[in-house]
């Protein structure tokens, strides 16, 4: 009889299921400790005693389960605090917790923003392993956004949380500048997916401006970049989230269709306009004017033209993206190596690089390297076309979106761009009155 079936106590079941993993972990640690050194150590005449070799402990799987559980719990708490409790203070406390745990304790990894690349790599590179944890870090915030809006951004994402706490004297960014810079996250998303899918690099992780702070060390450039983001973030709230975050693109799309979303007022809006400038991110949308500012016919004609031009924008974008395929392909280490070897052999490079030296010392033939590089370049040709077409589509949709008049009765946050931080709630007199009651 299966002992697992006969035991009805849930705790025993869980314990017995965890036990093999614990044993494996202990066994691995023991094996690691007793493993012979890979290279023989030199003998010194002076009688020097080599220090005992130490091996890092194997990370227990339970830690990853804890991460997932805490992520789920934090998103649930953020959604509750933003939508139900409407507590800005609670969100702030949760923000501090996220910075402390997901940021400093877990050192900013795994994060949902970077998980885009893991998923992209797994889709296009069959040999790329992705753990369940990474998949859940990718999916959970997206699913929660479909139900509750971008509550993940409000106080759970460690990157956003770090910027949120330094947003002390935010100024309004011109909407015109926002239109231009607002395209960057789409480009970043497309480039990150392209580079991950081609096995080139994970640029989101490489250029994460805050990871060096979470890890208390990092390359000078990255530390400087993070410092710049935080300093700018004092005045331009959440610059990374608004103008760079690729994950925010996905959240923004889903948030438009969310079942529920944070509202400024808990009840009926009294049109007091007190919340107009409350949002440091410029996400509050005003009620529609009573009279149409331009002729409907003009607007319809413009909309029709933009819809008609959309396919052209996609094709033009694809073509432009295709032109950038070659420069982009050089990011891949194999293509870069071929270029380096070609430069060395053609006399353009004064000396060889470590990579080319290692290649020459290997058994791989130059023809095989060229073939690999050719295959990578052809993937970039296709990928760059798709990236360009995607950007063309985004630009076209933006133009169309700016031409569509939405009827709004109340002051409400823009569902796509609102981070559900809850700052606006404190400005609403209806909310305050309800709170006092």
């Amino acid at each position, binding site marked *: 009889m299966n002992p697992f079936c006969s035991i009805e106590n849930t705790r025993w079941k869980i314990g017995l299921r965890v036990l093999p993993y614990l044993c494996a972990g202990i066994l691995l640690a023991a094996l690691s400790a007793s493993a012979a050194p890979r290279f023989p150590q030199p003998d010194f005449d002076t009688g020097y005693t080599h220090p005992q070799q130490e091996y890092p402990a194997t990370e227990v799987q339970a830690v990853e389960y804890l991460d997932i559980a805490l992520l789920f719990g934090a998103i649930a708490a953020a959604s509750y605090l933003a939508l139900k409790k409407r507590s800005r203070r609670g969100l702030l406390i949760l923000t501090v917790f996220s910075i402390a745990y997901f940021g400093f304790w877990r050192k900013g990894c795994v994060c949902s923003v970077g998980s885009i690349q893991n998923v992209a790599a797994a889709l296009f590179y069959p040999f790329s392993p992705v753990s369940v944890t990474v998949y859940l870090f990718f999916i959970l915030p997206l699913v929660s956004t479909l139900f509750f809006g971008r509550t993940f951004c409000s106080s759970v994402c460690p990157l956003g949380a770090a910027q949120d706490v330094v947003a002390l004297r935010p100024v309004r960014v011109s*909407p015109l500048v926002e239109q*231009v810079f607002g*395209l960057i996250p789409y480009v970043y998303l497309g480039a990150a997916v392209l580079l991950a899918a081609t096995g080139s690099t994970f640029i989101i992780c490489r250029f994460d401006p805050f990871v060096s702070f979470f890890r208390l060390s990092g390359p000078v450039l990255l530390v400087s970049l993070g410092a710049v983001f935080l300093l700018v973030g004092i005045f331009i709230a959440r610059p990374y989230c608004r103008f760079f975050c690729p994950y925010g693109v996905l959240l923004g799309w889903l948030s438009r269709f969310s079942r529920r979303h944070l509202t400024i007022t808990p009840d009926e809006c009294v049109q007091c306009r007190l919340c107009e400038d409350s949002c440091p991110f410029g996400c509050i949308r005003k009620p529609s*004017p009573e009279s149409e500012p331009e002729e409907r016919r003009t607007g319809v004609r413009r909309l029709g033209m933009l819809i008609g031009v959309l396919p052209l924008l996609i094709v033009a974008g694809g073509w432009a993206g295709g032109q950038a395929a070659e*420069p982009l392909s050089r990011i891949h280490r194999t293509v870069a190596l071929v270029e380096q070897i070609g430069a060395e*052999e053609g006399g353009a490079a004064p000396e060889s690089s470590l990579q080319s030296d290692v290649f020459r010392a290997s058994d791989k033939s130059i*023809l095989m390297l060229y073939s690999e590089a050719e295959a990578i370049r052809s993937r970039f040709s296709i990928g760059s076309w798709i990236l360009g077409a995607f950007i063309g589509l985004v630009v076209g949709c933006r133009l169309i979106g700016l031409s569509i008049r939405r009827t709004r009765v109340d002051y409400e946050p823009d569902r796509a761009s609102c981070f559900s931080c809850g700052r606006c709630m404190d400005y609403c007199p209806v909310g305050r009155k309800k709170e006092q009651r």
Partner: protein
Amino acid sequence: MTSSKKSVGYRCAAAVAIVSCVFCLTVTTLMIANYVLITRANPLESPVLTELAEKAGKERDAALAEDVRDLDLMVRRAFFSSVAFAGTGAYLLTAGLAVFLISLQSMGMLWGVHPDPGKYIPDDEGLAEEKAKRRMAAVGGVGLAALALVLAAIYLPLPSYDDLRGNGQNDTAGRAVVYSPSVDEIESNWPSFRGPYGLGTALRPEAPLKWDAASGAGIVWKVKLARTGFSSPAVWGDRVFLTGGDKEAREIYCIDAATGDLVWTHDVGVVPGGPDKLPEVSEDTGYAAATVATDGRHVIAIFATGNMVCVDTSGSRLWARNLKIPDNIYGHASSPIIHDGMVYAVIDDSSGRTLFALNVSTGATVWENSKATEPCWSSPAIVKLGGVYQLIANGNPEVCGYRASDGNLLWSVACMTGEVAPSPAADSNLIFAANEYAIMAAIDPAAGNKVKWQTDSDLPDVSSPVAAGGFLYVANSHGMVTWYQSDTGTKLWSKEFDDGFYSSPVVIGDRLYITDMSGNTFVLAAGGKYREEGRGTVGESVVTTLAFVGSRAFIRSAGHLYCVGVK
């Protein structure tokens, strides 16, 4: 909750913010200073320590060595103290920033919100803003497209791999259109080891018959070479090309064929991918045993390091690369050969054979072929069989024929063994390969790779056989010269000379030239009967093969290059 700026809580929070801000700024300044210190005081790059360590090593001064160790320990302690300081500083800064931000947030919360309705924006201003937004969105899109085009423009295009494989500019047969001398030019010069196509025969020259270095008769000029080498001369037009090399340097020389003046010397120097340490070579081989290959525009040399260098006829480097660092007991000796815009090189060493075909102009690999073989020192030859130019390579255990254009192995015959140094010969669609302790085989590739005939006597060990006009001539280091009928293998005659032969015999017109290790060249009538028609001597050791162009011959001895013929 709101509060005034004068409330106790707000003031406390403000005070804490100020103090923590000052603390953070102080720690940041100290960390920046510490970072500068770390980057400047890297113990691995200390010039003082390096100089002292070198001095202690050269002078073998134990006391100085001890001082160096103490100084090194001090520098390392200082470095790691700075690193530890940086780590501590990071924690302090983080804590300071946390306190600073918490105090600022507390101030904000205590101050509370003060809503301001904001400026009223009338409807037509909102319309103008909408138009501006659309314009900016379009500007953003155009800007991104422009960025993509700029990126494409500023980056020079990568060479297409068809170009690198030599198929960039294609002729009608789909091959790269590169410079290639005419057959007439090839046969009028001595472009590589053993002359045109590497077969040891030349139809055109009117070679000299007699010379004597002691009396000067028939010696046009004699020059001393800067460095030793066992490469044979290659000649194109009025230029003679040689290599020399030792542990100090490896060089290519260009000498005026008319006067013997040194035109230029090219020091190979450092080549990308080349070995850091020179491979071990025997004294009999040295670092410059492979003969140069030239097509009149490019001069290509390879050395024992595996470094291949191409220069133009003025001595300027065109390209250089390391093919492979040869690993064999004597050192690399196989000479490259140029044909149809490609230079071919064989490296047979302990890891097997690698056959390279490179674009002559760029050095880029056109094709590469690898095979499991034993180390060999033989040079390849180019033979046209069945309308196809083939690269013939002698090896252990197989003699192979590759299609020169793409490296396809067309045939191979396993008939060799031992340390194969002789290069193949060819005549009347037969390929001749031989080696001491193996056999002399006449291979007919057209007849299913059959060995048409073979013999195991008077086999060569270093010198390569030569075949022409229906006859095969073989010389070995024991002094034996043997004549065969090439199609049947019938031995016509053999003669034992006083000294052995390392130099390969050469058939010039209707004469056979063979040079022994004492520097005596015997000019024999080629054909069925032995008849001496001339003799020349340079009076010093000769192990290289003679080169013939026009009415002159070029002989490399142990330390000199001679030009013999009519002055």
